[in-house]
């Protein structure tokens, strides 16, 4: 994975010094809260319901064990012994003190980490495929491009005060594991007819209160124009994105209001102009970055056999493991969704255990997924059983990946100052209702996603089953959505009808699953059945 050179290290060190200075000016009274807020947000520091919350960037979701260990240590030293992995492949801490934040950032910088631009109206952490570099189906590792974009977007002086936040995802396989089309810019690395690698640009997707699927605006951007083209996309947005209404300020609204053709025309015009401005790093820089993502030293001649005689292990392998491109290896995902647990939370000890396993067994590498789980990307199959036993002992052996128990949930009203309703208790009740392996097996792949407000941090629009918490006269109320999907066949869920209370929404989910089971044909997933039979039978069962 990428390693900082002197320049990268100097950048994060300088940021620590800058933020230390900003905190000092705040505590001295030189900055009012109104003046300080945008500054702290650009460094991932929020004020949430109970305290400050710090969001730490995990660029494209990739970590080494020293970094993961530091995340556990920070949880112990500065927080309350746990962290929360987010849908942008980051981690956030819920109980941070302002006066500690400069020291936390210094600790992070010591392991090449930071909290730069994890919030605020700027380019956020760039997300990617959690199986990048290991998946059998990718045409190239997307992370070198994500790292190139990370450096370009860090402290980009023109784009720190955009109309609204800006999220970029980079993928490189047909299977979209990063919800690419639901980003402000989604980039898919592709190969053209001449066999060259380039970038396909999708612009103007997003969730939030006006969900949209990003249209493709450029089929192929050559690698030596990647930054120039991105810069053109951003400049048109910075100049013309709406600033009169924060709910209409995302780039999706600009693309929608201008129309894809007109937005594209403006970008292409700006792009032609910028080509002569020398903003593009040389290809040698991409090659330099790419070297860090070379394959680890895989052993050859390893057996592909797995002893699956332990039925619990067998279930975990079937659910949570994924084909690796290298014979004898496997990709293993740790579910942070134990039955009745808090989706995405991990204790400091669990975080450090995962770090140790990565060091000993996965070439020192881990990934955070947008579904709030952790991946060991390169495990020798011969080690898998021993690893699973260690995980299981620590409460990390849950076998439920991509099933109804693998719920994405935002922190909701238990932690978040924007939320209208709690998300976590609903996730807990659903995971308990469908907790048995038999039920999960019966329902197969079923992606359930819960947001506690319209901002959609829990991706409810993209859930096969989505739940949106709203405030109805001071009482929590939950709307049900069906038919969303974030993969290559991205679709947006539709609301079934009137909302429910907390127990009512759990019952409604169960009714929806019964409609599926009664109508399922062959190997159909819930989503396939819904797409075939439509909303009506579900509505009848839920409200009839």
């Amino acid at each position, binding site marked *: 994975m990428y390693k900082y050179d002197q320049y990268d290290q100097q*950048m994060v060190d300088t940021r620590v010094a800058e933020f230390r*200075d900003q905190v000092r000016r705040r505590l001295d009274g030189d900055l009012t809260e109104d003046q300080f807020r*945008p500054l702290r947000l650009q460094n991932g520091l929020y004020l949430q319901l109970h305290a400050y919350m710090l969001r730490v960037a995990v660029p494209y979701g990739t970590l080494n064990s020293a970094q993961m260990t530091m995340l556990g240590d920070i949880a112990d030293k500065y927080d309350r012994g746990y962290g929360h992995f987010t849908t942008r492949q980051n981690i956030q801490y819920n109980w941070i003190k302002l006066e500690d934040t400069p020291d936390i950032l210094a600790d992070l910088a010591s392991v090449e980490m930071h909290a730069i631009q994890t919030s605020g109206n700027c380019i956020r952490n760039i997300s990617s495929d959690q199986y990048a570099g290991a998946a059998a189906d990718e045409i190239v590792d997307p992370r070198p491009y994500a790292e190139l974009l990370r*450096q370009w977007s860090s*402290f980009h002086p*023109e784009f720190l005060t955009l109309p609204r936040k800006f999220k970029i995802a980079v993928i490189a396989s047909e299977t979209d594991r990063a919800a690419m089309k639901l980003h402000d810019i989604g980039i898919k690395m592709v190969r053209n007819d001449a066999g060259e690698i380039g970038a396909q640009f999708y612009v103007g997707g997003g969730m939030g209160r006006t969900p949209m699927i990003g249209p493709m605006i450029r089929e192929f951007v050559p690698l030596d124009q990647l930054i120039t083209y991105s810069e053109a996309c951003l400049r048109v947005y910075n100049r013309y994105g709406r600033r009169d209404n924060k709910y209409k300020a995302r780039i999706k609204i600009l693309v929608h209001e201008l129309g894809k053709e007109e937005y594209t025309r403006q970008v292409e015009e700006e792009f032609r102009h910028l080509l002569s401005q020398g903003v593009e790093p040389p290809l040698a820089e991409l090659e330099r970055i790419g070297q860090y993502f070379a394959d680890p030293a895989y052993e050859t001649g390893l057996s592909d056999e797995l002893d699956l005689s332990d039925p619990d292990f067998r279930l975990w392998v079937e659910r949570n493991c994924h084909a690796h491109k290298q014979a004898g290896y496997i990709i293993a995902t740790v579910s942070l969704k134990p039955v009745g647990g808090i989706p995405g939370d991990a204790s400091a000890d669990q975080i450090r255990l995962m770090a140790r396993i990565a060091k000993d067994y996965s070439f020192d590498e881990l990934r955070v997924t947008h579904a709030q789980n952790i991946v060991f990307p390169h495990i020798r199959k011969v080690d898998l059983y021993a690893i699973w036993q260690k995980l299981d002992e620590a409460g990390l052996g849950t076998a439920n990946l991509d099933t109804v128990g693998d719920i994405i949930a935002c922190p909701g009203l238990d932690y978040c100052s924007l939320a209208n309703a709690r998300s976590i208790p609903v996730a807990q009740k659903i995971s308990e209702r469908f907790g048995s392996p038999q039920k999960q097996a019966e329902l197969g792949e079923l992606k359930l996603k819960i947001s506690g407000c319209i901002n959609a941090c829990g991706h409810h629009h993209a859930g096969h089953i989505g739940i949106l918490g709203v405030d109805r006269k001071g009482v929590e109320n939950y709307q049900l959505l069906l038919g969303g999907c974030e993969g290559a066949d991205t679709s947006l869920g539709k609301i079934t009808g009137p909302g429910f209370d907390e127990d009512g929404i759990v019952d409604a989910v169960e009714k929806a699953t019964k409609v599926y089971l009664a109508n399922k044909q062959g190997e159909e997933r819930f989503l396939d059945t819904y797409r075939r039979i439509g909303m009506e039978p579900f509505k009848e069962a839920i409200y009839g």
Partner: protein
Amino acid sequence: MVEVQFRFRDDEAVNDPAVTVGTFAEQTNATAVRIEPGDDARDLIPYLDRLRLIEVNFPAWTDGRGYSSARVLREAGFDGELRAVGDVVIDMLSHLKRCGFDAFAPDHALNPADAEAAFARWDNVYQATADGRKPVWALRHQS
């Protein structure tokens, strides 16, 4: 009139009154213009030869359109004074300078020591912009 607190130019200060983009089109002898966030900086490109000063107003520093205006003007070859006026804050000074501003007239005078630290903050930069500084990627690959 608001004072220019920081200026990074050797030529004589420009004190001509800046007119709005709307009036500028009619006043063919004006040498200074002030652009607002909603103005299109490109409209000035035909007149850059006779302009000595362009003020870019930031009614709120969190409205970043002025950064693009500055780069558009510098990329079009403007070499006169480019002055940031309005809600100019310490923490954005270095970024403004990188986009091509070389004079700063904040509504409220800034603490000189904090401002000096802010201008000097970044030893290196990741992007090529209007200030001509060599980005990190150029330093990494210079032969």
